[in-house]
């Protein structure tokens, strides 16, 4: 949560700086609020929060399942005639579908307030203007798109991290390698899938 709060707030803050600079060229500083909100809700919120969660929780998931593999705990489940997928993979994918959108929402919210702090207090945008313009331009469809993206990232990250852990190689080196591969593969796929799902949902 701390990771999400920190990255969300600073994302909103740097967005305020960069977008204010760009919008001022067109005399449209009043649109800072909706610009930040739309950037966060539709794109940066889902992607950046997914990347942060991958690094923090995805790696831990791969390592945990990998350790279970090398200590034969997964073999023990199989030997008990129990399906390891049911106990290890499915709950994590369901958790990903639920948790990723929740954390993305928090990321978006804290990012919008981070942008407010910089935009209103430091750059002189009107406090009422920041939120009222946001209401004019941000619609439910934008929020839905962001949440769908987020949920799909949850599936991708959970699946890859569980898979890598499940098929980890021998020893500590195997776990370390799987953890690295899981984070890298998840990060790349988040960006690739972001493009495709963005084209579909647009």
């Amino acid at each position, binding site marked *: 949560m701390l990771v999400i709060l920190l990255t969300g707030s600073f994302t909103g803050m740097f967005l305020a700086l960069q977008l204010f600079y760009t919008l001022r060229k067109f005399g449209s500083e009043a649109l800072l609020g909706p610009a930040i909100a739309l950037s966060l809700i539709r794109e940066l919120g889902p992607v950046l929060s997914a990347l942060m969660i991958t690094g923090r929780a995805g790696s831990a998931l791969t390592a945990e399942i990998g*350790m*279970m593999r090398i*200590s*034969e*705990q997964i*073999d*023990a489940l*199989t*030997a*008990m*005639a*129990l399906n390891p997928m049911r106990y290890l993979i499915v709950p994590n994918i369901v958790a990903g579908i639920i948790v990723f959108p929740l954390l993305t929402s928090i990321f978006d919210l804290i990012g919008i307030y981070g942008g407010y702090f910089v935009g209103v207090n430091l750059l002189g945008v009107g406090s009422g203007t920041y939120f009222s313009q946001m209401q004019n331009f941000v619609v439910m469809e934008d929020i839905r798109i962001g949440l769908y993206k987020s949920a799909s990232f949850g599936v991708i990250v959970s699946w890859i991290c569980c898979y890598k852990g499940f098929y980890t190689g021998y020893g500590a080196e195997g776990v370390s390698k799987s953890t690295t591969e899981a984070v890298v593969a998840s990060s790349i796929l988040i960006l690739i899938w972001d493009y495709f799902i963005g084209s579909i949902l647009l």
Partner: protein
Amino acid sequence: MIDIIDLHKSFDGQKVLNGINLTIAEKELIIIMGKSGGGKSVIIKHIMGLLKADSGNIFIDKIDITKLDVKGLDKIRDKLGVLFQGGALFDSLTVFGNIAFPLREKTKLSKQEIKERVRQALEDVGLKGVGSKYPAELSGGMKKRVALARALITEPHIVLFDEPTTGLDPIISNSIHRLIRATHQKYGYTGIVISHEVPEIFEIADRVAMVFDGVIVETGTPEEIKNSSNPAVRQFITGSLEGPIEFLS
């Protein structure tokens, strides 16, 4: 009864099992011994259905498990209990949770019945009052005992022990051996113990089988094995550096 017929298995081109033939009678406690890396654990992983043989058959109660799908294998696994080399206790569960796990997942016993069965199982393995501890808080010997309790909790017909005393001191090893013998007498399961702790392990065995070069080179009672004239068996029992078993590979 377990019948292993001409079992072959290779890993990345390296032949590990080169035609294993072994028959294990019901309620027998057999020790499979051999040098490290000789394929002993590979044999019992085939019995569990965790590995698929390159060729050969394994019959458990006249059913060829090499031809079964996952559902069929699960029916066979319902008859099995396994003590893995490191215990394979679930880190996120307490000792109580570990032992109760198979009962909770596979039976319809009430909470009270499960509690009583776990209490009895812990008593059988000489561990009382450790139910709330986590595996990380246990010593090596205690982990093996808990793992043994978990392996026996569903009263399996066949119990597989993969090097149950590796890494333990002689006193704890001796106590684990005695525990295996005592539970074997109490529950009457068919037991297969993978071990290279000779001659101590002979005290609990009905029969011993020696694996060398991917085949069973000799089987017999502990006395017959001790008096064997087979060079590989003699070298293994005496721990000699001279003989057909290479110690640098």
